[in-house]
């Protein structure tokens, strides 16, 4: 347990950096590898701009909570058979709780500066992220069904013969929608975006902004590790050791999520809400029903 925590804490900084590098690929700016570090350092040297009558405590803590939720979510991912940081029989539910609390934290981040654009972003985000979270719950139950367990370790072991990606092909794409929402990017970035001048972080500057971006990247890592575990067999794989497989799969999901965030356009929120409730949620029901029929004895 302690060993797994240590490995995770060691692996997280390079993975966060990798996430920032992925975000930079294709923007035509050069300095792929060093750019994120330099920009981060420059942000750290800038001051935090005050706003009028903010909720100081929550404004200060929101990035920290976001990061903490990413860490807790990451902690249920098994690195190898029996090597889990938090070995719970209900790991999937804990991940679900992290998702739900992320919505709360993003709302607090937008609410606490006491300014119009952050508040609009916070509101929009909650309206979109709650149904997206609902979606992920059905998808994760689908992943748990073949394992007959809510433990993430059991979900991996149940994929020894065939990955969940093959068994339930709808699962990963639907789960990616949640990943985009959790990590505030692309089509699901209703907390931010150019049309709100940065949304919840429109008033942030300096270290607070750097911390928020760091936490966002860490959440991308946590989500990718979870998606790789629930649908791509986690640490399972031939020849290479388990943790390395997990790392490779995590990087692949990270790249796919970043690419999806670049490729799909953000809809006006009302249209996205319709899409979520009318198309994506029924799809997740269908996914669950198919999995249920499949695992019938």
């Amino acid at each position, binding site marked *: 347990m302690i060993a797994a925590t240590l490995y995770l804490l060691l692996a997280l900084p390079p993975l966060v950096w990798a996430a920032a590098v992925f975000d930079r690929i294709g923007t035509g700016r050069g300095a792929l590898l060093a750019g994120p570090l330099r920009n981060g350092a420059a942000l750290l040297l800038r001051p935090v701009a005050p706003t009028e*009558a903010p*909720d100081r405590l929550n404004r200060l803590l929101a990035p920290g909570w976001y990061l903490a939720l990413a860490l807790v979510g990451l902690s249920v991912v098994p690195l190898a058979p029996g090597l889990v940081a938090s070995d*719970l*029989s*209900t790991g999937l*539910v*804990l991940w*679900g*709780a992290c998702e*739900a*609390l992320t*919505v*709360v934290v993003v*709302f*607090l981040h937008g*609410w606490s500066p*006491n300014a119009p654009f952050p508040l609009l972003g916070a*509101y929009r985000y*909650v309206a979109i992220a*709650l149904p997206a*979270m609902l979606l992920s719950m059905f998808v994760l139950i689908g992943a748990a069904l073949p394992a007959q367990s*809510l433990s993430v370790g059991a979900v991996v072991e149940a994929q020894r013969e065939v990955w969940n990606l093959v068994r339930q092909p709808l699962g990963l794409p639907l789960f990616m929608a949640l990943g985009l929402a959790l990590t505030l990017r692309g089509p699901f970035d209703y907390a931010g975006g150019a049309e709100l001048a940065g949304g919840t972080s429109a008033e942030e500057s300096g270290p607070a902004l750097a911390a928020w971006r760091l936490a966002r990247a860490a959440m991308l890592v946590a989500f990718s590790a979870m998606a790789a575990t629930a649908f791509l067999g986690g640490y399972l794989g031939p020849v290479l050791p388990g943790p390395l497989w997990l790392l490779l799969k995590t990087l692949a999901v990270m790249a796919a999520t970043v690419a999806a965030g670049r490729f799909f356009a953000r809809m006006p929120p009302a249209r996205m809400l319709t899409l979520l409730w009318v198309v994506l949620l029924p799809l997740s029901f269908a996914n669950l029903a198919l999995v249920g029929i499949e695992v019938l004895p």
Partner: protein
Amino acid sequence: MTDALFLVLSALAVWSGWRVFRVDSMVRASFQLLVSFIAVGLIAVLLAAPYIGIATVFMMAVEMMVMALFMVMFMMNPAGLNPMSMVHQHRFAAITGGTAFAGLVAAVLLSDLPANPVPPEAEAVRDLGRELLGPSMLIFETAGVTLLATMIGAVVLSARSGRYGESDAGSVPPGLTPGGAPAGRRPAQGGGHHDHHWGH
């Protein structure tokens, strides 16, 4: 270790529960309540009920998020600029709450509580699952149907289209007393705002 954690978490649960009614911003109030729920959920995890505990955190995070939105919607004190107290029958409420607490504590201390703890080898989550989809399936399904009925009822109740046409359409609202002056907004006063200035 467990005892220390329990002490900290219960203190947090009670303190944040108390703060719910003491902070001036309703968003803070609803997230204080969330903190209280999270603390209770973690106590449940300590009590060997991991599913209930974490599910409480999960459910309450969503519920309090919705609560916070409603709070902001119906908040009479935007941004906390006006000092106001939205409390009535304060003394009666305090005495009743205190009495309830004292009575419950007395009941706890005076009664002979059965001691039959969960055996350490019990698989709480597996047992719960078998119970839910086995002997108690009817109860579980009934809860599901109730929730569905609630969803439909809530949408019907809160939608604009009411029983006698649009629920907010220009007609004069009914009086608060029979034959009394219409309640709510009066167009003659030149603008929709709250008519009631209770408080204190």
